[in-house]
């Protein structure tokens, strides 16, 4: 019995098929698990293990290396405030402090209504609009406390549902088809190309 919803399971299987080895689909599959559950649940991890022909321990060990995977439940919105060098010079620490007060939770914590989890981010590569704030890894581009507060209000009221979808980096990523360069054809193409290349090299050396 699959823990993944039927549509997620299908997307997961399509992803696995894109790689020469199933394990390569690990990170995209973990993004899918997080898209469904909001974090990496035991059941989600078990299913990723099955799909990648690994073990749950292996999956958890891999996932724990990466900042974006949550091994415990988080809020509906993960708010990331960058304090790295460019943002530091533009008031990133003050923004993080403000966010903590506004959301009523410490950095790394979740607001009492369960809606927001606050994180201190490393550089998010949007340094010309600093300090940088992301919500569920969407750039919301609020650089003042007032703009931040208004954005949080909008989130609460559901006015940003289009701009800030829920968890999962692949929630709006769809590959239109599977691989199209068939294996046999590719092998043949490689052999022909190699031969032609060698011939040309031989001609040059003559």
């Amino acid at each position: 019995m699959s823990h993944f919803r039927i549509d997620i399971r299908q997307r997961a299987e399509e992803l696995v098929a894109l790689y020469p080895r199933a394990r390569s689909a690990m990170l995209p599959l973990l993004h899918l698990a997080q898209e469904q559950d909001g974090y990496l649940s035991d059941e989600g991890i078990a299913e990723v293990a099955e799909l990648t022909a690994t073990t749950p321990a292996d999956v958890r060990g891999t996932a724990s290396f990466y900042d974006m995977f949550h091994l415990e439940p988080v809020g509906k919105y993960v708010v990331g405030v960058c304090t790295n060098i460019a943002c530091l010079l533009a008031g990133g620490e003050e923004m993080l402090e403000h966010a903590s007060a506004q959301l009523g939770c410490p950095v790394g914590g979740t607001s009492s209504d369960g809606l927001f989890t606050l994180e201190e981010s490393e550089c998010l590569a949007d340094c010309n609009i600093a300090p940088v704030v992301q919500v569920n890894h969407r750039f919301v581009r609020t650089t003042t406390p007032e703009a931040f507060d208004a954005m949080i209000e909008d989130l609460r009221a559901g006015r940003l549902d289009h701009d800030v979808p829920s968890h999962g980096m692949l929630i709006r990523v769809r590959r239109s088809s599977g691989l199209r360069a068939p294996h046999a054809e590719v092998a043949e193409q490689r052999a022909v190309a190699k031969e032609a290349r060698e011939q040309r090299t031989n001609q040059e050396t003559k």
Partner: protein
Amino acid sequence: MATLSAPRIVSSRAEFADSHTLTRYLATGGYRALRKALTMFPEAVAAEVDEASLLGRGGAGFPAGRKWSMLRKSHISYLVVNGDESEPATFKDHYLVEGDPHQLVEGVIIAAYALQVTRAFIFIRGEFALGLERVQQAVNEAYDHGALGSKIFATDFSLDIVVHPGAGAYICGEETALIEALEGKRGFPRIKPPFFPAVTGLYGEPTVVNNVETMSNLPWIVENGGAAFAALGGGRSTGTRLFALAGRVKNPGVYEIEMVKNTFRDLIYDPQLGGGVIGDRAIKAIIPGGVSAPWFGPELLDLPLGQDEVAEKGSMLGSGSIVVMDDTTCVVRAAWRITKFFSRESCGQCTPCREGSGWIERVMYRLEHGGGRMEDIDLLLDLCDNIAPGLTWPPQQTTICVLGPSIPSSVHSAIQMFRDDFVAHVRHGGCPHD
């Protein structure tokens, strides 16, 4: 004044709101270069890139043509594109993946043809949600357009591109760590030798890893010829480059300008570029190539933006990011924050990096937040020396990858240039700026 006569090679569509669509891309000459490349022998395409002397735009600045020629000797299996941009204050690839994904995809197809690779992976930083969507959309459209898949543009060349998301780890920008992530593992850099994935890469097979900006230059190079590219810039630094300007400047942003012909001062002060320092204050220091690079003082502002020119002065142009710190900036706090970043991002395999980054971070923290001691200043230099013995540039390597030896750069620079500021922190019992 800055020299702005060079064509914009990778950012020519920046002003179009729909620059990411196939319609706009085709209307502005898109996929013409690929059609041209497919009429040439693969090695002739590679020769153009060689002639362009295109230096890799990821950070190490290795000539792309030479990287490829190592591969041509063996049988190449995979092309991997590094879009895991995470060097602090670097945001040029972010622009390229969101703003011009078709240019990237066309570049990748051209490179794959030159290398006769039939499977390419584009690794996009996990935090770039929109970037992932745009690049996948571009790949989808390229398939529909006949530029990808079986028998591209009715030739005998076939290629599949897979877009792969990262998941938040700075170290995955290191090419062997990126390969590990692509294999579905923790992003641990691989032990060298072999020094290049060309020998043992993805699944142990010969692989080339190139940066997003490097790939994005290829359509222009094929269309206009390697010589036209090499005619721009100067010395070994040919062509234009995207510079990400951040920090205390009036107009932070990504600017494509000719290399060597322009200086740090041009980039920071030209009204069409950085526009000067906020509040017209004085510059205290700049970080010339990402936070792994040693800092420069204002006396080096007239240095040309070229790889060798910057290297000669003991730093690097690195990832093309320039951070400006003015006279209001607390350099102790800046260096502490950078060390905190490295401490957090160290993968933990090598002792000098794992332990050293944490020790330096804690000593820097107490200097900045109160509790620092006068002897801490030399202690910091000693800790830095333990990670990169001799504190030379380029640094001595004590670790598997270059993250470790990059840690001392900011702290060492800050102490060398602004020792008095550290002393003031000790005397004041914390940051005098607070």
